[in-house]
């Protein structure tokens, strides 16, 4: 589904990603871990097409298509979804209007008619239940005045609405209380299908207790320095990053 080859990228002339190789197949869950500032969110930005980040070398294909050629909205319509580490507020824009516009753009891209108002509201209701999000939130403006945890929940709600092929969850667990963490993780699991994939960016094992990864990668200083199965996350939890860092330097 996703193939990243020798990806280098810079922000304001500073090289952040220094040769990333990664392949994600349909049905897989990949976790990306790594110390602060190592480039995890930057990788998410590259995948979603944020202009701030300039790709200087390498290639990315998504379902066989050249991802780097696509505008951000096209990538989204092709099925890439990012649950933002810091979701922004859009004052005055109701969640309903926002989601309706988004869902219908996705449908249009696939050659489908826009949903009728009642079908749309039905879909909203269904997906709200799936991620157990409060109606009070979806009746408000996009993220406006939401608490940190509510924003994260709202990201997963949007994921449920858009049913992406590849979901990238950038620290979706941070800011969530214990119950919310479980709800959000359950939501993600319910959306899991053999034909879609998830990349989970996280610092903690607790999320991976629920969303069990097939692979865990450690991103350090712009490179994936170690990849293994789910046990790697446990090892990190125990030992921290020093052994990785030292290993790099050695």
């Amino acid at each position, binding site marked *: 589904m996703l193939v990243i080859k020798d990806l280098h990228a810079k922000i304001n002339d500073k090289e952040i990603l220094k040769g990333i190789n990664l392949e994600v197949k349909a049905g897989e869950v990949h976790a990306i871990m790594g110390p602060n500032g190592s480039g995890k969110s930057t990788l998410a930005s590259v995948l979603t097409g944020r202009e701030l980040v300039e790709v200087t070398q390498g290639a990315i294909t998504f379902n066989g298509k050249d991802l780097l050629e696509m505008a951000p909205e096209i990538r*989204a319509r092709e099925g890439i979804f990012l649950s933002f580490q810091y979701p922004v507020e*859009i004052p005055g824009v109701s969640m309903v209007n926002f989601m309706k516009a988004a869902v219908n753009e996705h449908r249009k*891209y696939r050659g489908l008619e826009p949903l009728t108002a009642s079908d749309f509201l039905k879909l909203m209701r269904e997906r709200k239940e799936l991620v157990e999000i409060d109606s009070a939130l979806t009746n408000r403006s996009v993220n406006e005045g939401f608490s940190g945890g509510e924003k994260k929940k709202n990201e997963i709600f949007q994921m449920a609405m858009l049913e992406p092929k590849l979901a990238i969850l950038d620290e979706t667990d941070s800011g969530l209380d214990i119950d919310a963490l479980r709800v959000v993780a359950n939501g993600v699991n319910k959306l899991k299908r053999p034909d879609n994939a998830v990349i989970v960016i996280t610092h903690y094992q607790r999320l991976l207790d629920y969303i069990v990864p097939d692979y865990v990668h450690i991103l350090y200083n712009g490179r994936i320095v170690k990849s293994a199965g789910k046990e790697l996350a446990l090892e990190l939890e125990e030992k921290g990053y020093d052994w990785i860092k030292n290993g790099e330097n050695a």
Partner: protein
Amino acid sequence: MVEEQDKILEEVTGSEYKYGFVTNIETETIPKGLNEDVIRMIWEKKGEPDWMLEFRLKAYRHWQTMEMPQWAHLQIPEIDYQDIIYYAAPRQKASPASLDEIDPEIKATFDKLGIPLDEQKVLSGVAVDAVMDSTSVKTTFRETLAEQGIIFCSMSEAIREHPDLVRKYLASVVPVTDNYFAALNSAVFSDGSFCYIPKGVRCPMELSTYFRINASNTGQFERTLIVADDDSYVSYLEGCTAPMRDENQLHAAVVEIVALENAEVKYSTVQNWYPGDKDGKGGIYNFVTKRGICQGKNSKISWTQVETGSAITWKYPSCILLGDNSYGEFYSVAVTNNRQQADTGTKMIHIGKNTRSRIVSKGISAGFSNNSYRGLVKVLKGAENARNFSQCDSLLLGDKCGAHTFPYLEVDNPTAIVEHEATTSKIGEDQIFYCNQRGLSTEDAVGLIINGYAKEVLNKLPMEFAVEAQKLLQISLEGSVG
């Protein structure tokens, strides 16, 4: 980041103005220029009574002693008042009795503008007075309204048919000597709408006037007068467009509203005069005086405006809160793009006791435009317990445009409470990206974000207009963010 900004600005192209076509009809015009003979000519053409000639000449003579105001934050090129045609009318019967008497070209024009003159086709619940250049071409639903005693007709007709009402109220809110453009308007105005709602009547439909400039080299000077008698209610809409022309055209209107005891008037405008091209060539100079008086106790006047057009806008819809417990509102969205300039706001004059006012102004600037809010809240000595709340927000797209806020406060009563809040923000690249990531194009994202920003004002518009206004906001900023 810098590159991003540059790209945004490069793409400021301003989309095609949709209403820029010209209607090919025979137009009767008088020679260019302004003097007392021209005023007599207009008066004669309109077949007005003698008192109107006096009214016009008095205004003209006063205007000659005045100078164009310079205080606005605007750069207004010299206007040659002798180079303007003051009267242009489509050649047709003055007040067509039936639709068949209207030139099909004119009908087609208004159809194209989405304002069908055929009552069968009209949005139910909206009566329209359609004004092209200097005259009203058709007022719909007059009979239906007349059944309830509501008068809704062109100003020319009102002067002929309802002289007592007109004489009583015309220039009672905006005196002919009020300001430079009001004096000019009083001297040469050619048409507009008149509306009278009798005591105790709730007007059953929205009344609206649609102004269309068609002829070239002409100015449009229309005059609107709305009188709401005791315990009445009316909601009034105003829309306007003009062809795309390289020359600037002057539009200097006066709108007066009188609200008597317990009366309520809602006045909504969607102003979409041709704004000029992206280099600032052509466009309408929109110099308008709009003022309402809450004359009776418990009366209410509410101004809502969506200003997207015009090369230059100079406009301050105001409320004189004379009656005790009266209430004035001003809700505004003003968009400027490319080289447009707007200096707009309101005046709330608190005279009666317990008078209240609320001001919500949302400015949006893009391109190289300049957008100013100018507002005065004045509380006179006797205005016990007067209350005002003002919220003035500015949103910037790009860094070559300007937003300015000039709030003036004059409070002469210690019991008054006056609050003012102001914010300036930029449309965030991160907000746009967030929308992109959900599958929305940048254009749609900007549309969504500014409509969200302007929501409080848009919500004030009648339904039929709100949808139009939302689209218009998006269109006027098309291409302003890349």
